[in-house]
Protein backbone atom coordinates (compact mmCIF):
# COMPACT_ATOMS: atom_id res chain seq x y z
CA UNK A 1 0.00 0.00 0.00
CA UNK A 2 1.10 3.52 -0.65
CA UNK A 3 -0.38 5.82 1.92
CA UNK A 4 -0.27 9.61 1.93
CA UNK A 5 -0.52 11.19 5.37
CA UNK A 6 -1.33 14.88 5.61
CA UNK A 7 -0.03 16.51 8.75
CA UNK A 8 -0.24 20.04 10.06
CA UNK A 9 2.17 21.74 12.38
CA UNK A 10 0.29 23.61 15.11
CA UNK A 11 1.25 25.61 18.21
CA UNK A 12 1.88 23.47 21.28
CA UNK A 13 -1.30 23.53 23.37
CA UNK A 14 0.77 24.14 26.48
CA UNK A 15 2.24 27.35 25.11
CA UNK A 16 0.99 30.82 26.00
CA UNK A 17 -0.52 32.42 22.93
CA UNK A 18 -0.57 36.12 22.09
CA UNK A 19 -2.47 37.85 19.32
CA UNK A 20 -0.18 39.08 16.53
CA UNK A 21 0.32 42.79 15.93
CA UNK A 22 -1.97 42.78 12.85
CA UNK A 23 -4.73 41.18 14.94
CA UNK A 24 -5.34 38.49 12.35
CA UNK A 25 -3.52 35.52 13.80
CA UNK A 26 -1.42 34.59 16.79
CA UNK A 27 2.13 35.79 17.25
CA UNK A 28 4.23 32.85 16.09
CA UNK A 29 7.52 34.06 17.56
CA UNK A 30 8.68 32.30 20.68
CA UNK A 31 6.10 29.54 20.57
CA UNK A 32 6.78 25.87 20.17
CA UNK A 33 5.18 23.96 17.32
CA UNK A 34 4.19 20.33 17.30
CA UNK A 35 2.48 17.91 14.94
CA UNK A 36 -1.29 18.27 15.25
CA UNK A 37 -2.47 15.60 17.66
CA UNK A 38 -4.97 13.70 15.51
CA UNK A 39 -2.47 13.80 12.61
CA UNK A 40 -0.01 11.92 14.83
CA UNK A 41 -2.59 9.14 15.13
CA UNK A 42 -3.15 9.20 11.36
CA UNK A 43 0.60 8.74 10.84
CA UNK A 44 0.76 5.89 13.34
CA UNK A 45 -2.18 4.17 11.63
CA UNK A 46 -0.45 4.52 8.26
CA UNK A 47 2.83 3.12 9.59
CA UNK A 48 1.03 0.18 11.21
CA UNK A 49 -0.87 -0.53 7.97
CA UNK A 50 2.26 -0.53 5.82
CA UNK A 51 4.02 -2.76 8.35
CA UNK A 52 1.14 -5.25 8.03
CA UNK A 53 0.45 -4.96 4.28
CA UNK A 54 3.78 -3.72 2.92
CA UNK A 55 4.20 -0.46 1.08
CA UNK A 56 5.28 2.98 2.17
CA UNK A 57 4.11 6.16 3.80
CA UNK A 58 4.67 9.58 2.27
CA UNK A 59 3.96 12.53 4.51
CA UNK A 60 2.63 15.87 3.23
CA UNK A 61 2.51 19.21 4.92
CA UNK A 62 1.96 22.83 3.94
CA UNK A 63 3.55 25.78 5.67
CA UNK A 64 6.71 27.82 6.22
CA UNK A 65 10.22 26.50 6.90
CA UNK A 66 9.43 25.60 10.52
CA UNK A 67 7.26 22.78 9.14
CA UNK A 68 10.52 20.97 8.32
CA UNK A 69 10.71 19.97 11.99
CA UNK A 70 7.32 18.26 11.83
CA UNK A 71 8.26 16.47 8.61
CA UNK A 72 11.61 15.31 10.02
CA UNK A 73 9.79 13.96 13.04
CA UNK A 74 7.39 12.07 10.78
CA UNK A 75 10.37 10.69 8.83
CA UNK A 76 12.02 9.66 12.11
CA UNK A 77 8.86 7.81 13.04
CA UNK A 78 9.05 5.81 9.83
CA UNK A 79 7.64 7.72 6.85
CA UNK A 80 9.66 7.06 3.70
CA UNK A 81 9.57 10.50 2.12
CA UNK A 82 8.14 13.92 2.75
CA UNK A 83 6.55 16.53 0.52
CA UNK A 84 6.71 20.06 1.86
CA UNK A 85 4.49 22.65 0.20
CA UNK A 86 6.79 25.38 1.36
CA UNK A 87 6.48 27.94 -1.44
CA UNK A 88 5.19 31.22 -0.04
CA UNK A 89 2.39 31.15 -2.63
CA UNK A 90 0.87 28.25 -0.66
CA UNK A 91 0.79 30.14 2.64
CA UNK A 92 -2.12 31.78 4.42
CA UNK A 93 -4.82 29.84 2.65
CA UNK A 94 -8.21 28.68 3.90
CA UNK A 95 -9.17 25.02 4.05
CA UNK A 96 -10.20 24.96 0.40
CA UNK A 97 -6.98 26.52 -0.90
CA UNK A 98 -4.95 24.14 1.28
CA UNK A 99 -6.99 21.14 0.09
CA UNK A 100 -6.46 22.20 -3.50
CA UNK A 101 -2.68 22.33 -3.05
CA UNK A 102 -2.63 18.99 -1.24
CA UNK A 103 -4.89 17.38 -3.86
CA UNK A 104 -2.55 18.45 -6.65
CA UNK A 105 0.48 17.11 -4.78
CA UNK A 106 -1.24 13.81 -3.96
CA UNK A 107 -2.59 13.41 -7.49
CA UNK A 108 0.94 13.69 -8.90
CA UNK A 109 1.65 10.26 -7.37
CA UNK A 110 -0.26 7.00 -6.97
CA UNK A 111 -1.79 6.38 -3.54
CA UNK A 112 -4.16 3.75 -2.17
CA UNK A 113 -5.19 5.81 0.80
CA UNK A 114 -4.95 9.27 2.31
CA UNK A 115 -4.96 9.46 6.09
CA UNK A 116 -5.16 12.63 8.14
CA UNK A 117 -6.42 13.90 11.47
CA UNK A 118 -10.08 14.88 11.80
CA UNK A 119 -9.30 18.49 12.56
CA UNK A 120 -6.47 20.82 13.43
CA UNK A 121 -5.89 21.92 16.98
CA UNK A 122 -5.37 25.55 15.96
CA UNK A 123 -7.87 26.65 13.28
CA UNK A 124 -10.14 23.67 13.91
CA UNK A 125 -12.29 23.93 10.75
CA UNK A 126 -12.30 20.15 10.29
CA UNK A 127 -12.82 20.85 6.59
CA UNK A 128 -9.54 20.28 4.75
CA UNK A 129 -9.84 16.49 4.65
CA UNK A 130 -13.37 16.42 3.29
CA UNK A 131 -12.54 19.07 0.69
CA UNK A 132 -9.47 17.04 -0.28
CA UNK A 133 -11.68 13.97 -0.80
CA UNK A 134 -14.07 16.06 -2.87
CA UNK A 135 -11.28 17.45 -5.07
CA UNK A 136 -9.78 13.98 -5.55
CA UNK A 137 -13.23 12.50 -6.16
CA UNK A 138 -12.58 9.78 -3.57
CA UNK A 139 -14.80 8.29 -0.86
CA UNK A 140 -14.37 9.89 2.53
CA UNK A 141 -14.88 9.10 6.21
CA UNK A 142 -14.57 11.51 9.14
CA UNK A 143 -14.12 10.98 12.90
CA UNK A 144 -12.81 7.47 12.37
CA UNK A 145 -11.95 5.43 15.46
CA UNK A 146 -11.16 2.10 13.80
CA UNK A 147 -9.74 1.10 10.43
CA UNK A 148 -9.17 -2.27 8.82
CA UNK A 149 -8.00 -2.68 5.25
CA UNK A 150 -9.65 -5.69 3.61
CA UNK A 151 -7.62 -8.47 2.06
CA UNK A 152 -6.46 -7.48 -1.39
CA UNK A 153 -6.41 -3.83 -0.36
CA UNK A 154 -9.39 -2.81 -2.52
CA UNK A 155 -11.56 -1.64 0.35
CA UNK A 156 -11.49 -0.77 4.03
CA UNK A 157 -13.85 -1.09 6.95
CA UNK A 158 -14.07 1.94 9.19
CA UNK A 159 -15.58 2.47 12.61
CA UNK A 160 -16.99 5.87 13.38
CA UNK A 161 -17.91 7.04 16.81
CA UNK A 162 -21.46 8.32 17.06
CA UNK A 163 -23.31 10.07 19.85
CA UNK A 164 -24.53 8.13 22.89
CA UNK A 165 -21.70 5.61 22.72
CA UNK A 166 -22.90 4.03 19.47
CA UNK A 167 -20.53 3.10 16.68
CA UNK A 168 -21.21 3.20 12.96
CA UNK A 169 -19.41 0.72 10.70
CA UNK A 170 -19.11 0.98 6.97
CA UNK A 171 -16.96 -0.17 4.15
CA UNK A 172 -15.54 2.12 1.50
CA UNK A 173 -13.67 1.55 -1.72
CA UNK A 174 -10.04 2.56 -1.92
CA UNK A 175 -8.50 4.92 -2.72
CA UNK A 176 -10.21 7.00 -0.08
CA UNK A 177 -9.58 9.86 2.31
CA UNK A 178 -9.95 8.83 5.94
CA UNK A 179 -9.83 11.30 8.81
CA UNK A 180 -9.08 9.83 12.19
CA UNK A 181 -9.63 10.92 15.77
CA UNK A 182 -6.98 11.06 18.45
CA UNK A 183 -7.03 7.90 20.54
CA UNK A 184 -7.34 5.50 17.60
CA UNK A 185 -4.01 3.81 18.41
CA UNK A 186 -0.83 4.33 20.45
CA UNK A 187 1.62 6.53 18.54
CA UNK A 188 5.16 5.18 18.75
CA UNK A 189 8.26 7.05 19.89
CA UNK A 190 10.84 8.05 17.35
CA UNK A 191 13.67 5.56 17.77
CA UNK A 192 17.24 6.74 17.78
CA UNK A 193 17.80 4.75 14.60
CA UNK A 194 14.78 6.41 13.01
CA UNK A 195 15.97 9.86 14.05
CA UNK A 196 19.34 9.24 12.42
CA UNK A 197 17.88 7.76 9.24
CA UNK A 198 15.49 10.70 8.94
CA UNK A 199 18.41 13.01 8.20
CA UNK A 200 19.01 11.20 4.92
CA UNK A 201 15.41 10.82 3.78
CA UNK A 202 14.28 13.05 0.92
CA UNK A 203 12.00 16.05 1.38
CA UNK A 204 10.53 17.39 -1.88
CA UNK A 205 9.52 21.03 -2.09
CA UNK A 206 7.37 21.44 -5.20
CA UNK A 207 6.20 24.87 -6.34
CA UNK A 208 2.62 25.52 -7.50
CA UNK A 209 3.88 25.32 -11.09
CA UNK A 210 5.43 21.91 -10.44
CA UNK A 211 1.98 20.70 -9.44
CA UNK A 212 0.26 22.29 -12.44
CA UNK A 213 -1.30 25.03 -10.32
CA UNK A 214 -1.21 28.77 -10.82
CA UNK A 215 -0.17 30.76 -7.80
CA UNK A 216 -3.51 32.52 -7.30
CA UNK A 217 -5.37 29.19 -7.01
CA UNK A 218 -3.68 28.47 -3.70
CA UNK A 219 -2.66 30.25 -0.49
CA UNK A 220 -4.17 33.53 0.49
CA UNK A 221 -4.85 34.52 -3.12
CA UNK A 222 -6.89 31.36 -3.71
CA UNK A 223 -8.91 31.61 -0.50
CA UNK A 224 -12.61 32.29 -0.14
CA UNK A 225 -12.37 32.88 3.56
CA UNK A 226 -10.52 35.69 5.23
CA UNK A 227 -9.73 35.96 8.93
CA UNK A 228 -10.92 39.40 9.93
CA UNK A 229 -9.96 39.43 13.56
CA UNK A 230 -8.46 37.19 16.25
CA UNK A 231 -9.03 38.12 19.88
CA UNK A 232 -9.39 36.71 23.36
CA UNK A 233 -12.94 36.89 24.73
CA UNK A 234 -13.52 39.75 27.16
CA UNK A 235 -12.94 38.41 30.61
CA UNK A 236 -15.92 38.39 32.92
CA UNK A 237 -18.60 38.56 30.26
CA UNK A 238 -21.17 35.81 30.87
CA UNK A 239 -19.53 34.77 34.14
CA UNK A 240 -21.55 34.58 37.31
CA UNK A 241 -19.88 34.86 40.66
CA UNK A 242 -21.64 33.14 43.55
CA UNK A 243 -21.24 35.05 46.79
CA UNK A 244 -21.16 33.71 50.32
CA UNK A 245 -19.45 30.83 52.08
CA UNK A 246 -18.55 27.68 50.07
CA UNK A 247 -21.65 25.77 51.18
CA UNK A 248 -24.02 28.56 50.14
CA UNK A 249 -22.16 29.15 46.86
CA UNK A 250 -22.17 25.44 46.02
CA UNK A 251 -25.89 25.24 46.72
CA UNK A 252 -26.55 28.19 44.41
CA UNK A 253 -24.35 26.64 41.71
CA UNK A 254 -26.17 23.31 41.86
CA UNK A 255 -29.48 25.15 41.63
CA UNK A 256 -28.34 26.94 38.48
CA UNK A 257 -26.85 23.81 36.92
CA UNK A 258 -30.09 21.92 37.58
CA UNK A 259 -32.68 24.52 36.64
CA UNK A 260 -31.00 26.86 34.15
CA UNK A 261 -28.25 24.86 32.46
CA UNK A 262 -30.21 21.60 32.96
CA UNK A 263 -27.02 19.54 33.02
CA UNK A 264 -27.75 17.82 36.34
Amino acid at each position, binding site marked *: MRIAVCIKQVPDAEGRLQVAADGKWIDEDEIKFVINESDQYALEEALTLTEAHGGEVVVFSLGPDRVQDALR*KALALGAKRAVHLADSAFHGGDAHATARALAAAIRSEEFDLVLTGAQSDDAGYGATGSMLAGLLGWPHAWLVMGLEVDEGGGSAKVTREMESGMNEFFRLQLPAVIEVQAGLNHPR*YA*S*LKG*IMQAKRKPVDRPTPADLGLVADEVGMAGSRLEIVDVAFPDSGVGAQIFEGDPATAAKALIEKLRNEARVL
Partner: protein
Amino acid sequence: MRESLRQLIDTEINPYVDAWEEARAFPAHEVFKKLGDAGFLGIARPPEYGGMGLDWSYSLVMAEELGHIQCGGVPMAIGVHTDMCTPALDRFGSDRLKREFLAPSIAGDLVGCLGVSESVAGSDVASIRTMARRDGDDYVINGEKMWITNGGQADWMCCLVNTADGHPHRNKSLLIVPLNAPGVERSRKLDKLGMWSSDTAQIFFDDVRVPRHHLIGEEGMGFAYQMMQFQEERLWAAANTVTGLDNVIRETINYTRERQAFGRSILDNQVVHFRLAELSTEVEALRSLVYRATELMIAGEDATRLASMAKLKAGRLQREVVDSCIQYWGGQGYMWESPVARAYRDGRLLSIGGGTDEVMLGIICKYEGTLPKTR
Protein backbone atom coordinates in the same frame (compact mmCIF):
# COMPACT_ATOMS: atom_id res chain seq x y z
CA MET B 1 16.69 12.70 20.24
CA ARG B 2 15.95 14.88 23.24
CA GLU B 3 12.38 15.37 22.11
CA SER B 4 11.74 11.67 21.57
CA LEU B 5 13.23 10.72 24.93
CA ARG B 6 11.30 13.48 26.64
CA GLN B 7 8.06 12.24 25.13
CA LEU B 8 8.80 8.73 26.34
CA ILE B 9 9.63 10.03 29.83
CA ASP B 10 6.49 12.17 30.03
CA THR B 11 4.23 9.36 28.82
CA GLU B 12 5.71 6.14 30.13
CA ILE B 13 7.62 7.17 33.25
CA ASN B 14 6.63 10.42 34.98
CA PRO B 15 2.93 9.61 35.39
CA TYR B 16 3.90 6.51 37.42
CA VAL B 17 6.79 7.82 39.48
CA ASP B 18 4.74 8.52 42.62
CA ALA B 19 3.33 4.99 42.60
CA TRP B 20 6.79 3.49 42.05
CA GLU B 21 8.24 5.55 44.88
CA GLU B 22 5.47 4.21 47.08
CA ALA B 23 6.14 0.63 45.92
CA ARG B 24 9.89 1.03 46.51
CA ALA B 25 10.59 -0.31 43.00
CA PHE B 26 9.68 0.31 39.39
CA PRO B 27 8.95 -2.34 36.75
CA ALA B 28 12.45 -2.36 35.24
CA HIS B 29 11.78 -4.96 32.53
CA GLU B 30 8.71 -3.12 31.30
CA VAL B 31 10.38 0.31 31.23
CA PHE B 32 13.67 -0.97 29.79
CA LYS B 33 11.81 -2.74 26.96
CA LYS B 34 10.23 0.56 25.93
CA LEU B 35 13.61 2.30 26.04
CA GLY B 36 15.23 -0.60 24.20
CA ASP B 37 12.60 -0.61 21.45
CA ALA B 38 13.32 3.06 20.87
CA GLY B 39 17.06 2.35 20.67
CA PHE B 40 18.09 4.22 23.82
CA LEU B 41 19.84 1.42 25.71
CA GLY B 42 22.82 0.99 23.43
CA ILE B 43 23.65 4.48 22.24
CA ALA B 44 27.42 4.11 22.49
CA ARG B 45 27.48 0.33 21.87
CA PRO B 46 28.41 -1.30 18.55
CA PRO B 47 25.69 -1.89 15.95
CA GLU B 48 26.53 -5.62 15.75
CA TYR B 49 25.01 -6.00 19.22
CA GLY B 50 22.05 -3.76 18.47
CA GLY B 51 23.68 -0.53 19.58
CA MET B 52 23.79 2.76 17.73
CA GLY B 53 27.58 3.07 17.54
CA LEU B 54 27.49 6.74 18.51
CA ASP B 55 30.08 8.54 20.59
CA TRP B 56 29.58 9.34 24.26
CA SER B 57 28.22 12.83 23.61
CA TYR B 58 24.94 11.11 22.72
CA SER B 59 25.03 9.16 25.98
CA LEU B 60 25.57 12.49 27.69
CA VAL B 61 22.42 13.85 26.05
CA MET B 62 20.50 10.84 27.28
CA ALA B 63 21.86 11.24 30.82
CA GLU B 64 20.82 14.89 30.73
CA GLU B 65 17.31 14.13 29.48
CA LEU B 66 16.80 11.40 32.06
CA GLY B 67 17.24 14.19 34.61
CA HIS B 68 13.67 15.20 33.70
CA ILE B 69 12.37 12.07 35.40
CA GLN B 70 10.69 13.28 38.57
CA CYS B 71 12.80 11.19 40.93
CA GLY B 72 16.39 10.02 41.22
CA GLY B 73 15.78 6.28 41.43
CA VAL B 74 14.53 5.53 37.92
CA PRO B 75 17.23 7.46 36.02
CA MET B 76 19.87 5.87 38.26
CA ALA B 77 18.53 2.41 37.45
CA ILE B 78 18.66 3.19 33.73
CA GLY B 79 22.15 4.67 34.04
CA VAL B 80 23.41 1.58 35.85
CA HIS B 81 22.20 -0.51 32.94
CA THR B 82 23.48 1.68 30.10
CA ASP B 83 26.67 3.20 31.45
CA MET B 84 27.81 1.43 34.61
CA CYS B 85 27.49 -2.35 34.23
CA THR B 86 28.03 -2.57 30.46
CA PRO B 87 31.12 -0.52 29.44
CA ALA B 88 33.68 -3.18 30.46
CA LEU B 89 31.63 -5.95 28.85
CA ASP B 90 31.52 -3.90 25.67
CA ARG B 91 35.25 -3.03 25.78
CA PHE B 92 36.78 -6.32 26.84
CA GLY B 93 34.09 -9.02 26.66
CA SER B 94 34.25 -11.82 24.09
CA ASP B 95 31.88 -11.87 21.16
CA ARG B 96 30.06 -14.83 22.70
CA LEU B 97 29.60 -13.07 26.03
CA LYS B 98 28.38 -9.92 24.33
CA ARG B 99 25.83 -11.88 22.30
CA GLU B 100 24.60 -13.59 25.45
CA PHE B 101 24.35 -10.53 27.70
CA LEU B 102 25.07 -7.23 25.96
CA ALA B 103 22.78 -7.64 22.95
CA PRO B 104 19.65 -8.61 24.96
CA SER B 105 20.40 -5.80 27.43
CA ILE B 106 20.55 -3.28 24.61
CA ALA B 107 17.25 -4.65 23.33
CA GLY B 108 15.74 -4.18 26.79
CA ASP B 109 15.07 -7.89 27.29
CA LEU B 110 17.56 -8.30 30.13
CA VAL B 111 18.24 -6.00 33.09
CA GLY B 112 21.81 -5.65 34.31
CA CYS B 113 23.40 -4.54 37.56
CA LEU B 114 26.89 -3.86 38.82
CA GLY B 115 28.39 -5.70 41.79
CA VAL B 116 31.37 -3.90 43.27
CA SER B 117 30.51 -2.80 46.83
CA GLU B 118 30.30 -5.27 49.68
CA SER B 119 29.14 -4.69 53.22
CA VAL B 120 32.81 -4.62 54.26
CA ALA B 121 34.15 -2.65 51.29
CA GLY B 122 32.51 0.21 49.40
CA SER B 123 34.76 2.89 48.01
CA ASP B 124 37.77 0.80 49.07
CA VAL B 125 37.29 -1.43 46.06
CA ALA B 126 40.60 -3.23 46.49
CA SER B 127 39.39 -4.72 49.79
CA ILE B 128 36.44 -6.71 48.45
CA ARG B 129 36.30 -10.31 49.68
CA THR B 130 34.06 -12.14 47.23
CA MET B 131 36.10 -14.97 45.75
CA ALA B 132 35.78 -16.93 42.53
CA ARG B 133 37.83 -20.12 42.36
CA ARG B 134 38.35 -22.07 39.21
CA ASP B 135 36.88 -25.54 39.18
CA GLY B 136 37.11 -27.36 35.86
CA ASP B 137 35.32 -25.25 33.24
CA ASP B 138 33.61 -23.12 35.86
CA TYR B 139 34.25 -20.45 38.40
CA VAL B 140 32.73 -21.10 41.81
CA ILE B 141 31.78 -17.86 43.56
CA ASN B 142 31.36 -17.29 47.27
CA GLY B 143 30.72 -13.98 48.92
CA GLU B 144 28.30 -11.09 48.96
CA LYS B 145 27.55 -7.80 47.22
CA MET B 146 25.85 -4.85 48.91
CA TRP B 147 23.77 -1.82 47.83
CA ILE B 148 23.12 -3.29 44.42
CA THR B 149 20.99 -0.98 42.30
CA ASN B 150 18.51 -3.05 40.22
CA GLY B 151 19.55 -5.93 42.47
CA GLY B 152 16.02 -7.11 43.09
CA GLN B 153 15.13 -7.40 39.42
CA ALA B 154 18.35 -7.73 37.45
CA ASP B 155 18.94 -10.80 35.27
CA TRP B 156 22.71 -10.56 35.40
CA MET B 157 25.47 -8.84 37.31
CA CYS B 158 28.82 -7.52 36.18
CA CYS B 159 30.55 -8.74 39.30
CA LEU B 160 33.98 -7.82 40.62
CA VAL B 161 35.56 -10.83 42.34
CA ASN B 162 38.97 -11.96 43.54
CA THR B 163 40.23 -14.73 41.32
CA ALA B 164 43.58 -15.10 43.07
CA ASP B 165 45.47 -14.06 46.16
CA GLY B 166 48.20 -11.48 45.87
CA HIS B 167 48.31 -7.77 45.11
CA PRO B 168 44.76 -6.40 45.44
CA HIS B 169 45.00 -4.45 42.19
CA ARG B 170 46.09 -7.48 40.19
CA ASN B 171 44.07 -10.35 41.67
CA LYS B 172 40.60 -9.31 40.56
CA SER B 173 38.38 -10.15 37.61
CA LEU B 174 35.03 -9.08 36.24
CA LEU B 175 32.59 -11.96 35.78
CA ILE B 176 29.09 -11.94 34.33
CA VAL B 177 26.90 -13.74 36.86
CA PRO B 178 23.37 -14.78 35.81
CA LEU B 179 21.29 -14.00 38.87
CA ASN B 180 19.03 -17.02 38.40
CA ALA B 181 22.01 -19.31 38.97
CA PRO B 182 21.68 -21.80 41.85
CA GLY B 183 23.26 -20.40 45.02
CA VAL B 184 22.37 -16.76 44.32
CA GLU B 185 20.22 -15.32 47.04
CA ARG B 186 18.78 -11.83 46.99
CA SER B 187 17.99 -10.14 50.26
CA ARG B 188 14.84 -8.15 50.87
CA LYS B 189 14.84 -4.72 49.31
CA LEU B 190 17.06 -2.45 51.33
CA ASP B 191 15.35 0.49 53.02
CA LYS B 192 17.05 3.70 51.95
CA LEU B 193 16.93 7.41 52.73
CA GLY B 194 15.95 8.18 49.15
CA MET B 195 16.01 6.74 45.63
CA TRP B 196 12.91 4.78 46.59
CA SER B 197 11.70 3.80 43.15
CA SER B 198 15.00 2.02 42.57
CA ASP B 199 15.17 -1.37 44.21
CA THR B 200 18.41 -1.97 46.02
CA ALA B 201 19.43 -5.41 47.23
CA GLN B 202 22.13 -7.31 49.02
CA ILE B 203 23.06 -10.40 47.04
CA PHE B 204 24.72 -13.51 48.44
CA PHE B 205 26.71 -16.10 46.48
CA ASP B 206 26.93 -19.57 47.91
CA ASP B 207 28.97 -21.87 45.65
CA VAL B 208 27.56 -20.17 42.56
CA ARG B 209 28.90 -21.77 39.39
CA VAL B 210 29.42 -19.69 36.27
CA PRO B 211 31.12 -20.93 33.11
CA ARG B 212 34.69 -19.81 32.40
CA HIS B 213 33.65 -17.89 29.31
CA HIS B 214 31.73 -15.47 31.57
CA LEU B 215 35.05 -13.83 32.39
CA ILE B 216 35.32 -10.33 30.91
CA GLY B 217 38.68 -9.91 29.21
CA GLU B 218 41.63 -11.26 31.15
CA GLU B 219 41.84 -12.72 34.60
CA GLY B 220 43.51 -10.34 37.06
CA MET B 221 42.49 -7.24 35.10
CA GLY B 222 39.17 -6.72 36.89
CA PHE B 223 40.34 -3.86 39.09
CA ALA B 224 41.76 -1.96 36.13
CA TYR B 225 38.65 -2.60 34.00
CA GLN B 226 36.41 -1.43 36.82
CA MET B 227 38.46 1.74 37.29
CA MET B 228 37.93 2.48 33.59
CA GLN B 229 34.26 1.62 33.81
CA PHE B 230 33.90 4.07 36.71
CA GLN B 231 34.64 7.00 34.38
CA GLU B 232 31.41 6.53 32.44
CA GLU B 233 29.56 6.01 35.70
CA ARG B 234 30.87 9.22 37.26
CA LEU B 235 30.42 11.37 34.22
CA TRP B 236 26.94 9.96 33.68
CA ALA B 237 26.01 10.81 37.28
CA ALA B 238 27.27 14.39 36.91
CA ALA B 239 25.45 14.92 33.60
CA ASN B 240 22.23 13.53 35.00
CA THR B 241 22.51 15.86 38.00
CA VAL B 242 22.79 19.02 35.92
CA THR B 243 19.27 18.66 34.53
CA GLY B 244 17.78 17.75 37.89
CA LEU B 245 19.32 20.87 39.45
CA ASP B 246 18.07 23.07 36.61
CA ASN B 247 14.59 21.72 37.29
CA VAL B 248 14.79 22.25 41.06
CA ILE B 249 15.88 25.85 40.52
CA ARG B 250 13.16 26.45 37.95
CA GLU B 251 10.47 24.97 40.17
CA THR B 252 11.74 27.07 43.05
CA ILE B 253 11.51 30.20 40.92
CA ASN B 254 7.93 29.29 39.97
CA TYR B 255 6.93 28.52 43.54
CA THR B 256 8.55 31.56 45.14
CA ARG B 257 7.10 33.83 42.48
CA GLU B 258 3.58 32.72 43.41
CA ARG B 259 4.04 32.46 47.16
CA GLN B 260 3.39 35.71 48.99
CA ALA B 261 4.85 36.73 52.33
CA PHE B 262 4.92 40.16 53.95
CA GLY B 263 3.06 41.68 51.04
CA ARG B 264 5.20 40.49 48.15
CA SER B 265 6.35 37.35 46.46
CA ILE B 266 9.19 35.42 48.11
CA LEU B 267 11.14 35.71 44.86
CA ASP B 268 11.06 39.52 45.00
CA ASN B 269 13.42 39.44 47.97
CA GLN B 270 16.89 40.17 46.67
CA VAL B 271 18.42 37.54 48.91
CA VAL B 272 16.28 34.95 47.12
CA HIS B 273 16.67 35.92 43.46
CA PHE B 274 20.37 36.67 43.91
CA ARG B 275 20.92 33.31 45.58
CA LEU B 276 19.07 31.48 42.80
CA ALA B 277 21.22 33.33 40.26
CA GLU B 278 24.35 32.18 42.09
CA LEU B 279 23.11 28.61 42.07
CA SER B 280 22.30 28.71 38.36
CA THR B 281 25.80 30.01 37.73
CA GLU B 282 27.25 27.07 39.65
CA VAL B 283 25.11 24.62 37.66
CA GLU B 284 26.29 26.14 34.38
CA ALA B 285 29.91 25.79 35.55
CA LEU B 286 29.29 22.12 36.35
CA ARG B 287 27.70 21.63 32.93
CA SER B 288 30.79 23.07 31.25
CA LEU B 289 33.04 20.78 33.28
CA VAL B 290 30.93 17.77 32.27
CA TYR B 291 31.14 18.80 28.63
CA ARG B 292 34.93 19.19 28.81
CA ALA B 293 35.32 15.78 30.40
CA THR B 294 33.06 14.34 27.70
CA GLU B 295 35.24 15.88 24.99
CA LEU B 296 38.28 14.17 26.51
CA MET B 297 36.47 10.87 26.68
CA ILE B 298 35.35 11.11 23.05
CA ALA B 299 38.90 11.99 21.99
CA GLY B 300 40.06 8.78 23.67
CA GLU B 301 42.11 10.69 26.23
CA ASP B 302 42.21 10.06 29.97
CA ALA B 303 39.13 11.76 31.40
CA THR B 304 39.67 10.46 34.94
CA ARG B 305 40.74 13.76 36.49
CA LEU B 306 37.89 15.82 35.05
CA ALA B 307 35.31 13.05 35.48
CA SER B 308 36.26 12.74 39.15
CA MET B 309 36.04 16.52 39.54
CA ALA B 310 32.65 16.55 37.84
CA LYS B 311 31.34 13.80 40.12
CA LEU B 312 32.72 15.57 43.22
CA LYS B 313 31.27 18.91 42.20
CA ALA B 314 27.93 17.36 41.23
CA GLY B 315 27.54 15.70 44.64
CA ARG B 316 28.35 18.85 46.53
CA LEU B 317 26.35 21.16 44.30
CA GLN B 318 23.36 18.84 44.51
CA ARG B 319 23.38 19.29 48.28
CA GLU B 320 23.98 23.03 48.11
CA VAL B 321 21.31 23.78 45.52
CA VAL B 322 18.60 21.60 46.99
CA ASP B 323 19.30 22.74 50.53
CA SER B 324 19.03 26.40 49.50
CA CYS B 325 15.89 25.76 47.48
CA ILE B 326 14.14 23.85 50.24
CA GLN B 327 14.75 26.89 52.47
CA TYR B 328 12.80 29.14 50.07
CA TRP B 329 9.98 26.60 49.81
CA GLY B 330 9.61 26.85 53.57
CA GLY B 331 7.12 24.52 55.24
CA GLN B 332 5.86 23.33 51.87
CA GLY B 333 9.36 22.17 50.95
CA TYR B 334 9.69 20.24 54.17
CA MET B 335 6.63 18.18 53.29
CA TRP B 336 7.48 14.59 52.41
CA GLU B 337 5.66 14.69 49.06
CA SER B 338 7.17 17.96 47.77
CA PRO B 339 9.45 17.60 44.73
CA VAL B 340 12.22 19.50 46.46
CA ALA B 341 12.08 17.18 49.48
CA ARG B 342 12.38 14.20 47.15
CA ALA B 343 15.40 15.80 45.46
CA TYR B 344 16.88 16.41 48.91
CA ARG B 345 16.54 12.72 49.85
CA ASP B 346 17.51 11.26 46.48
CA GLY B 347 20.43 13.60 45.83
CA ARG B 348 22.31 12.80 49.02
CA LEU B 349 23.51 9.55 47.47
CA LEU B 350 25.56 11.35 44.85
CA SER B 351 28.42 12.14 47.24
CA ILE B 352 28.49 8.50 48.38
CA GLY B 353 27.67 6.15 45.49
CA GLY B 354 30.03 5.47 42.59
CA GLY B 355 32.97 6.47 44.81
CA THR B 356 32.57 8.93 47.69
CA ASP B 357 33.62 12.56 47.57
CA GLU B 358 36.71 11.54 49.53
CA VAL B 359 37.65 8.93 46.93
CA MET B 360 37.18 11.55 44.20
CA LEU B 361 39.49 13.89 46.14
CA GLY B 362 42.07 11.11 46.45
CA ILE B 363 41.99 10.50 42.69
CA ILE B 364 42.27 14.21 41.92
CA CYS B 365 45.21 14.55 44.35
CA LYS B 366 46.90 11.61 42.67
CA TYR B 367 46.67 13.46 39.35
CA GLU B 368 47.84 16.68 41.01
CA GLY B 369 50.80 14.84 42.50
CA THR B 370 49.89 15.96 46.02
CA LEU B 371 49.23 12.62 47.69
CA PRO B 372 51.74 11.82 50.43
CA LYS B 373 54.10 9.02 49.44
CA THR B 374 53.11 5.63 50.85
CA ARG B 375 55.87 3.69 52.53
